[in-house]
């Protein structure tokens, strides 16, 4: 193959284990005490990728290239030598919480969310939308519902991925 534009510091073609695995837990703990743990942070949506180029918190350029049946997950150990390891950390997911003020408004909001292919979950009588961009970008898609007061924005929340 022709050369990539620049060579990564690490090419990761397999996940070594989970930080929760007993055999890794103690070793990572030891490395952590000696400043040997580096993190790669990803958003939830990026976990589906099998090829991606990311920069770790300490600036290491990592090319992740996994087999199709090997998923990324929070706590995946991507690289390790005797003193250092790179571990995947999934960013907290941001949710936009929307509260319809009537059953009719709930139907309209549900229709809009489906039509816009938003990823949603339900919390009580509220609808929560997983945000993969700025909040305003989502509100701009349902201006009539927001401006009329048919749907109220509840304070943003975060949750573990």
């Amino acid at each position: 193959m022709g050369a990539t534009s620049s060579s990564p510091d690490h090419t990761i073609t397999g996940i070594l284990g989970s930080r929760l695995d007993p055999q890794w837990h103690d070793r990572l703990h030891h490395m952590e005490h000696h400043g040997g743990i580096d993190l790669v942070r990803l958003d939830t949506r990026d976990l589906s990728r099998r090829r991606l180029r990311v920069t770790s918190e300490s600036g290491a350029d990592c090319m992740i290239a996994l087999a199709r049946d090997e998923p990324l997950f929070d706590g995946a150990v991507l690289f390790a030598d005797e003193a250092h390891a790179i571990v995947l950390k999934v960013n907290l997911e941001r949710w936009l919480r929307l509260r319809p003020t009537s059953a009719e408004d709930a139907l309209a909001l549900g229709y809009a969310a489906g039509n816009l292919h938003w990823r949603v979950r339900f919390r009580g009588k509220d609808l929560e939308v997983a945000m993969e961009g700025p909040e305003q970008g989502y509100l701009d898609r349902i201006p009539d519902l927001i401006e009329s007061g048919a749907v109220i924005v509840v304070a943003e929340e975060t949750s573990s991925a």
Partner: protein
Amino acid sequence: MDTIDNIPAAETGTKPLGAARVGIGGPVGSGKTALIEQLLVHLAKRSISTAVITNDLVTAEDAERLRKGGAIDPARVLAVEAGACPHTVIREDPTLNIIAADQLDRLYRDLELTIIESGGDNLASTFSLDLVDWWIFVIDVAGGDDIPRKRGPGVLQCDLLVVNKVDLAPHVGVDLGRMLEEARSVRDGRPVVATNCRSGENVAAVADAIAEAVLVAR
């Protein structure tokens, strides 16, 4: 100090990786197939083993065009007939395309890159990351300089936005500089490349971006 043993030798996986999968989507007539035709030339020059999957509604028109183009072994071009909305087979249920890509991985053990071209769609079209690792959205100058301002999910969410047919800007009254500036603005600075896929202008930059993002040196 604790002893550290039994740590695997770091960075080597044992499973076959298969090819990287890159999606190319965008509105009808924006130049997706033309971009692929030009990309194939650049990728061949770099000796990158490539295959293509095209998606058409009920024909194999785009696949035939690429097969006849001479830039790729015709056997390395597969056609998926979507039979319905183009975004359905790249987002809601990409099974047909996944099967085709898996088939190419089995057929060509040296395969490094599979390009998956969506059928022409609208600005809301996006790829599932279960199907592709990275994706490009192609819009064109002649479609109107207001396209970036419409903030369609395709424009906002793609990994690389290609603004094609830049040569037409003076003929259709488009301020190209402003269009590109607005495109970068709505994408919060994520990459935008301006191309003319008829002449090949700036297609090398698209090939560079693909290599940088998903290709692994073997």
